[in-house]
């Protein structure tokens, strides 16, 4: 199953293909004109039709993933705000000390110092929420096991999985059958596009994953999101996520009601396609639509804040003028700290090494345990406390042992402190002037900048974490090894691989588990092909060609097609199938379903 970008691009390429095609049969040519006019006049329903699988998945889901993403987006927004606030605090502190004689500099300094302490408290406040979110994401409850893999009968399957593996061709035909106007016809055309896109696109995903969505759901999600990001970055038919949300929202901004005509169309098609007495209850389509809109908007919310600027050149000169005495850092040196919950040091000591060209341990979910926010909190608390305690002594040209002790101590090995009441340093203009000339002022500026940088890096790590757990698109990270493996077809020797024993620990790597028998040929994509291969003309498997085949039959009122598995489960173009035995046995007794079988 593809993602939003894949479905959207497939719609665009199919419309081009259909528009350019010529049909000798006048009835088919008339249907062509009608379809093109409908899509041109009603682009929203067409795109929503292309998202019909997404809509049904959302409708059938338990809502856990969206709730998790909502929490993540809320934390992300607060993190962005805090990062921006820290930038403003830094600017005030640095500016006041750079020009201590300016009127108002002392007040500016005191106010910023108070705000900095409040900021540290806020950071400490969200740290627990971040840890909780991270723990919930790492349960991977948002990627539930496929019901077929649990040998459940289809009456116990959720509609998200059912619609991808049963009566797929029939459902598209039922949509066309029920389409009575341009809007509904446009929706049906979109759904036909999604059919072809999923048949061809899922084959591509399975090839890069090394197996099937059913057996490699973690890798499949990474692959799906990566292919989507790749298409968003490279394909001219791609749209931004919020633009897609706008296009499938009917009526005024903020509207989340699925239009009744489209709800009726989908509902009718489902009832006409499936024997609903042998399925789970029909899902709430309106809820699915609301979730789809929210999902599109949330996915677009994870932009990194602006990179923190360095301190002014005056400070940088002081800090870096002697290469033999670089400024101190409170961050651990030669130690990797990202893997430790609640702060503290762990994981890797010694000098770093270049990363592998292939996905390696640094791509696994275990590296994603912490984003380092706890360490930022500890450093900020200690830094501000020490600076405020020492101000008076520095102003009188005395040495402050508290400051030196802080620099010498391994603050990162402490536990994060509880929030404290902010202290107003109460610095006078004279004191500020005296302090500003001290080397400790430059050290303070450098350490504050370092903390800001660390907060930004924590955001960057958090986004990588969310992408690596499949919750958000990797976007600009798609060129890194963890994700890049899904944008070029690998050379394979045997396919598809069975489930792996501990997928959470190894889903970053191509599976080495045994082949699921009966073995089948991997999709015939050339080695090294990028995701465009299933969308562009000339490919052995093109989404638009699959769609055109089905659409042509519908237009000509022919009926010789099969229901193809939309996960390409057991290979490209494999019809919907059932197992005569447990899918855990070897070999699986694969039985292709007749057209009317459910």
């Amino acid at each position: 199953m593809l993602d939003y970008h894949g479905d959207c691009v497939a719609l665009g390429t199919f419309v081009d293909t259909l528009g350019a095609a010529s049909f000798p049969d006048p009835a088919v040519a008339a249907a062509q004109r009608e379809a093109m006019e409908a899509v041109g006049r009603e682009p929203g329903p067409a795109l929503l039709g292309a998202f019909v699988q997404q809509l049904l998945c959302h409708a059938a889901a338990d809502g856990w993933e969206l709730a998790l993403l909502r929490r993540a987006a809320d934390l992300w927004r607060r993190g962005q705000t805090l990062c921006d606030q820290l930038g403003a605090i830094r600017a005030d502190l640095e500016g006041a000390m750079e020009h201590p004689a300016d009127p108002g500099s002392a007040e500016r300094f005191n106010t910023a110092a108070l705000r900095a302490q409040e900021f540290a408290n806020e950071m400490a406040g969200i740290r627990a929420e971040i840890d909780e979110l991270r723990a919930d994401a790492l349960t991977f409850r948002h990627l539930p096991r496929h019901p077929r893999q649990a040998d459940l009968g289809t009456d116990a399957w959720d509609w998200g999985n059912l619609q991808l593996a049963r009566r797929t061709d029939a459902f598209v035909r039922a949509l066309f059958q029920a389409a009575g106007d341009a809007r509904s016809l446009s929706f049906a055309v979109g759904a036909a596009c999604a059919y072809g896109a999923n048949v061809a696109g899922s084959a591509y995903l399975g090839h890069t994953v090394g197996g099937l969505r059913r057996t490699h759901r973690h890798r499949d999600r990474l692959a799906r999101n990566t292919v989507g990001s790749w298409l968003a970055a490279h394909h001219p038919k791609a749209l931004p996520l919020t633009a897609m949300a706008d296009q499938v929202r009917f009526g005024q901004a903020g509207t989340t009601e699925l239009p009744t005509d489209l709800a009726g169309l989908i509902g009718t098609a489902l009832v006409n396609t499936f024997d609903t007495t042998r399925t789970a209850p029909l899902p709430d389509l309106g809820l699915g639509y609301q979730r789809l809109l929210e999902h599109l908007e949330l996915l677009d919310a994870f932009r990194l804040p602006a990179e923190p600027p360095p301190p002014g050149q005056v400070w940088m000169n002081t800090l870096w003028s002697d290469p033999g005495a670089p400024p101190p850092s409170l961050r651990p040196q030669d130690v990797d700290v990202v893997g430790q919950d609640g702060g503290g040091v762990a994981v890797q000591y010694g000098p770093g090494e270049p990363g592998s060209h292939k996905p390696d341990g640094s791509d696994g979910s275990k590296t994603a345990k912490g984003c380092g926010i706890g360490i930022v909190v500890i450093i900020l608390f200690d830094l501000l406390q020490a600076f405020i305690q020492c101000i008076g002594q520095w102003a009188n040209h005395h040495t402050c042992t508290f400051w030196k002790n802080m620099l010498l101590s391994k603050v990162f090995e402490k536990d994060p402190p509880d929030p404290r009441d902010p202290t107003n340093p109460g610095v006078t203009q004279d004191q500020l002037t005296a302090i500003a000339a001290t080397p400790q002022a430059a050290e303070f500026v450098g350490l504050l900048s370092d903390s800001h940088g660390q907060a930004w890096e924590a955001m960057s790590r958090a986004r990588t974490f969310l992408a690596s757990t499949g919750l958000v698109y990797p976007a600009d990270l798609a060129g890194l090894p963890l994700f890049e493996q899904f944008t070029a077809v690998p050379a394979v020797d045997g396919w598809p691989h069975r489930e792996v024993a501990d997928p959470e620990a190894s889903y970053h790597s191509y599976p080495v588990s045994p082949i699921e028998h009966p073995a089948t040929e991997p999709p015939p994509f050339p080695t090294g092909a990028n995701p465009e291969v299933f969308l562009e003309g000339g490919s052995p498997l093109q989404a638009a060609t699959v769609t055109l085949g089905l659409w042509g039959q519908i237009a000509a009122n022919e009926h010789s097609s099969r229901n193809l598995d939309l996960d390409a489960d057991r290979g490209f173009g494999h019809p919907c199938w059932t197992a005569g035995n447990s899918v855990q046995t070897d070999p699986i007794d694969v039985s292709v379903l007749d057209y009317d079988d459910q």
Partner: protein
Amino acid sequence: MNEEGQPDGQGHEGPPDTRPYLCIPYWTTPLSPNGSWDTGQQRPLPGTVVSYLCDSIQASPYQPGQPLDVEVSVRNSGGGNSASLATVVVYWADPTVGFAKPNFFAASVVAVKPSRTAPASTTTPTMTATVPASAPPHICLLAAVSHPQDRAGTVCDPIGDRHWAQRNLQAATVAPGAPALVPLTVANPFAEEAPFLVRVGPAELRHAERVAQEFGTEPADAAATVRLLDMDGAQVSEDGRATQLLLSLGPRESVRFQLLVDVASELPAGQSLALEATLLDRSGERVIGSLGAALLGPDQ
């Protein structure tokens, strides 16, 4: 190397390391058929690399007392998938072999994503500053990239430390009977006293081609006689096509010399002669610093 042809410790499960692994790259295409782009791992720099001409440091035309724009490209070959904020500091110095106390020029911060499968680098915003009008007509630019978890060494060591790089080339006009005096400072970059060997002579062909390319010229098939003079004009090394001097320098001490260059015949238009000065440890085995000079004919 392991069976996957990767450095030991890579490509296997183990303690994951997501720290940045920074460098200022000296090359972006493999130096040999089975080689790689510059990941920072090959330090000291291979002999085929012109250590005083790092293309990752780019500058606008330099004039003392006028604003100078400098950009530096850096790369992160580390593991993981998230960006690191690296600090890039640029220094300038008089034409120097070995750097002791370079002058701060400007500094910037840049987010560098790890890049493990392509020779990708990230370029800093343009850093603009003014080198004093009293500075010589040629200067050396020196850059260092650092991150709290992957810090640059405290010795300015572009040859041995991947965090450092230099752009350190000057030009002089020569003609038969009109020898050139090229200023040359020799500096001890270390915090302890040490003996050094300074060698000056013609650049090998590949280096000469690279130097010539900088001036839009071809390497000249000509020879020059060189000797080192102290600042009083006294000769301190033998003269010949190459010369060398053994000296001892205190911690971060620098000594100024003049290189006297004499050509037997006029350099044709469009050609240049490349000279290199290298600072070596006493054994002459380890290169500590380098400096290039292009000799051009009077018409260029």
